[in-house]
């Protein structure tokens, strides 16, 4: 492919061997003003999608999103292949290289609305939102956006354009009207003259043609693959051990390293005795790696301490070497902090209400309070959470002769490349990044700290180094889901209507709409106070929706209970003007058999949360026996607008539910003496098969804008669980995780949320 030279939206080029390629690009002067405004200077370009067709009639889709398990690469290829009428057996995909041409402008610049893009997911390394196309550093997989942005605005257009150009080329050659040519399974067919030829035959000619700037897209009824199930392209390699994760990389002459960063966040090395470590067989070197107190787009000022790294012939030797290192840390007084102090600080700051920011203020809350027949107050809290990806953080790096090569699995290849370059004092062009399958991402692999650390070790070693974190390091050096405390007051008026909703919580992050409620409550005052801590934090599957979903969907349940009204009926009444919300709520209740009576000791809870453009209602059924909670069944109703890949969507919803349920039942990172108390799966418990409920997912294709899949399953499960426990026991769970309660006894009001 040559350089993009024209003002075209869609551009083409010849590829080696006589095939052709199509890119959907944004160019200055683009006909759609909102797209044109993204690229304003001559020479700027963005390629959002590429498709290549080679002489063997193989279509290769170049996907600008990473694969962390969500199936994004398959579903994007599926969207393109449908519009192109490509034979699915002849479709391959490649992940786009981290090049500015693939920067994900649609994500960053508000085509889909600023409010939906967590700042966490646009981590320009210098902490600023940079000017478009000047030093753009985004190529992000997150925010459940792959289908919504790249798929809708890129893949379908590229596929349709390719098909249209191939038809034109065949019409020219066959001397028949283009309208008489139909396409099917990567072939062109002219029935009247009984001609049939593979796409590849016309690729060279198509490459010479001007691409259509507004290709015709299929209507929903014409979809053959969109909305239908196809097998994921990555799965065969994931059942025979051949899938390549970053930790599977082997580079000639490679050595291994493992690290310990200051357990108290932000600590520095005061004294290091590596004499014993150097005597461990196989140990090559013991190194110091500098921390980072710079700015980060999501977390603000970072608080990453120094690390000790041990380099050895193998991971095991490196680990033994590290155990033999004696290090004293300088902690700057940060070792006085603990979880209880943090929650107490949140309490004080909410009460003080200093510089409270507003999410939504409407109506007259004070008047509602003055006229209230009933006032309901509650306070909730959730702890820090680690992501605990199955694959611990790791990266392989080689830094030599002013070049850095890095092999990694990450959610933001361009951002990582920029961060590594900055840490080494390089230009981004001096860094080559090879991205791999991620053994889980969930937001953790959007923070480049582990890439930077590997590069800094490699720069000292002058050999390829595979840096592998122990599980202990992975749990203790995460960028955690923030702990939050949230306080509510609601009123019910003389008519029995909910008149007001007041909510103040600590620390606003993203997405902005997470604490907002869909319910028809006339007077609302929702806002936040700042209460910063030194604990590193970052996006965690569905970001702020997990905390606020738990809070708001628990409190609405409390209001229903105060009125002694069925919590499903209560919600439905308050959603009477929200047809999509009402539809998922009704569907979940209906499929769950909400009106069927349950045996004693069993309970049912419902919750609803819209996130990332998808509406999800969940009903959780529990059995509580001698205080032990067993989750029996979860019914989810999901409206993603259109399920592009129905089974893929269901898999994501199941996955999001288990992820959220695991956190609600067991997840807790607690801070003791400034450091994380947990270390591995024995004390940072994860939900296992024996605790996993049956999950039933029901999809509603409402025809609304296409929403996300990876995250929306998570937020509703914790509140639905807590509401089910209330239904079963009368105990209101107001802080997570559930394992900290002894449900043999009724939770007393005085015990709640210290």
């Amino acid at each position, binding site marked *: 492919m040559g350089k993009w030279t024209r003002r075209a939206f869609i551009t083409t080029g010849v590829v080696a061997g006589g095939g052709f390629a199509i890119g959907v690009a944004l160019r200055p002067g683009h006909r759609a003003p909102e797209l044109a405004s993204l690229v304003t200077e001559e020479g700027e370009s963005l390629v959002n999608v590429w498709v290549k067709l080679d002489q063997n009639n193989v279509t290769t889709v170049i996907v600008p999103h990473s694969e*962390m*398990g*969500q*199936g994004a690469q398959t579903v994007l290829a599926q969207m393109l292949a449908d519009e192109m009428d490509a034979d699915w057996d002849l479709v391959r995909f490649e992940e786009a290289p981290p090049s500015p041409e693939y920067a994900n402008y649609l994500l960053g610049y508000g085509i889909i609305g600023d409010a939906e893009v967590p700042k966490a997911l646009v981590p320009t390394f210098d902490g600023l939102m940079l000017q478009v196309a000047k030093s753009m550093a985004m190529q992000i997989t997150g925010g459940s956006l792959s289908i919504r942005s790249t798929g809708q605005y890129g893949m379908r257009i590229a596929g349709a354009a390719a098909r249209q150009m191939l038809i034109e080329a065949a019409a020219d050659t066959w001397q028949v009207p283009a309208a008489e040519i139909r396409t099917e399974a990567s072939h062109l067919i002219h029935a009247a003259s009984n001609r049939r030829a593979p796409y590849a035959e016309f690729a060279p000619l198509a490459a010479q043609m001007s691409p259509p700037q507004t290709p015709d897209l299929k209507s929903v009824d014409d979809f053959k693959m969109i909305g239908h199930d196809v*097998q*994921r392209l*990555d*799965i*065969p*390699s*994931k*059942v*025979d*051990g*051949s*899938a390549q*994760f970053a*930790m*599977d990389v*082997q580079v000639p002459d490679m050595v*291994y390293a493992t690290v310990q960063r200051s357990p108290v966040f932000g600590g520095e090395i005061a004294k290091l005795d590596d004499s014993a470590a150097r005597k461990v067989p196989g140990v090559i070197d013991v190194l110091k790696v500098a921390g980072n107190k710079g700015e980060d787009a999501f977390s603000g000022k970072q608080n990453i301490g120094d690390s000790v790294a041990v380099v050895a012939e*193998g*991971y*095991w*030797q490196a*680990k033994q070497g590290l155990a033999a290192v004696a290090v004293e840390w300088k902690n700057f007084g940060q070792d006085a902090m603990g979880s209880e102090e943090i929650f107490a600080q949140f309490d004080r700051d909410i009460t003080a209400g200093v510089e409270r920011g507003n999410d939504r203020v409407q109506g007259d809350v004070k008047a509602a309070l003055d006229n209230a027949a009933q006032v309901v107050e509650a306070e909730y809290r959730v702890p820090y959470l680690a992501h*605990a*990806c*199955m*694959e*611990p953080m790791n990266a392989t790096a080689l830094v030599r002769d002013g070049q850095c090569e890095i092999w990694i699995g990450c959610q933001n290849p361009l951002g990582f490349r920029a961060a590594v370059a900055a840490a080494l004092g390089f230009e981004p062009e001096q860094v080559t990044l090879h991205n791999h*399958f*991620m*053994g*889980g*991402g*969930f937001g953790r692999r959007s923070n480049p700290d582990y890439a930077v650390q590997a590069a800094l070790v490699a720069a000292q070693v002058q050999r390829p180094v595979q840096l*592998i974190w*122990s*599980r202990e390091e992975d749990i203790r050096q995460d960028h955690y889901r923030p702990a939050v405390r949230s306080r509510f007051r609601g009123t019910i008026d003389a008519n029995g209507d909910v008149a007001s909703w007041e909510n103040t919580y600590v620390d606003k992050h993203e997405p902005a709409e997470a604490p907002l409620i869909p319910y028809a409550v006339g007077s609302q005052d929702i806002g936040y106070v700042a209460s910063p801590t030194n604990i590193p934090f970052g996006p965690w599957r569905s970001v702020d929706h997990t905390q606020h979903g738990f809070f708001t969907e628990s409190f609405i349940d409390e209001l229903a209970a105060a009125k002694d009204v069925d919590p499903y009926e209560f919600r439905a009444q308050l959603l009477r003007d929200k047809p999509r919300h009402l539809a998922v709520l009704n569907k979940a209740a209906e499929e769950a058999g909400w009106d069927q009576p349950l045996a004693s000791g069993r309970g049912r809870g419902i919750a609803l949360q819209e996130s990332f453009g998808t509406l999800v209602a969940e009903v959780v059924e529990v059995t509580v026996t001698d205080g032990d909670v067993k989750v029996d069944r979860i019914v989810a109703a999901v409206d993603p607008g259109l399920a592009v890949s129905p*089974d893929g969507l269901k*898999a994501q919803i*199941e*996955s*999001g*539910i*288990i*992820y959220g*349920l*695991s956190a609600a039942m067991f997840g807790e990172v607690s801070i003791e003496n400034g450091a994380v108390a947990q270390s*591995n*799966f*024995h004390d940072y418990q*994860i*939900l*296992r*098969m*024996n605790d*996993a409920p049956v*999950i039933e997912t029901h999809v509603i294709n409402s025809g609304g804008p296409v929403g996300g899949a990876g995250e929306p399953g998570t937020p509703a499960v914790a509140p639905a669980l807590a509401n089910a426990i209330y239904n079963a026991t009368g105990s209101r769970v107001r802080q997570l995780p559930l394992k900290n309660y002894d449900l043999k006894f009724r939770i007393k009001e005085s015990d709640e949320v210290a």
Partner: protein
Amino acid sequence: MIRLTVNGKEQELDVDPQTPLLWVLREQLRLTGTKFGCGMAQCGACTVHVNGTAQRSCVTPLAAVQGQQITTIEGLAPSEDELHPLQQAWIDEQVPQCGYCQSGQLMSAASLLASNANPSDEEINAAMQGNICRCGMYGRIKKAINRVAGVGYFDPARGEV
């Protein structure tokens, strides 16, 4: 020198005998399908078969498997162009998401079915609860196991269907 058989091939290794089998497989033998997850037998990502039985390779010193038959995910299928029925079931049920834990899940499931061709729900839970899946695909894993249960399968330890 420590001798053992891995996927039917004899190996002779000059490695510290206390080194966990996991790292020998990954670093010396380049069999990277077996994964590191926790290092303390808590997650099951490193599960391999020792003489046909599931074992956590991250806590198994090399010395402990001297002269034993080891099977890894790379050796689970009966031949190069054939899949183990569980591998096929994993594809049919579209089980993997990120896929990182799936080698261990498959090795645990294969070990279960080798000793109990028709496991009950409780027996499946008991055999599989040592394997964490952070993508939460437990329901699909169970479905895939049930799909194969009671059907003829290849037992790598015996080398026959």
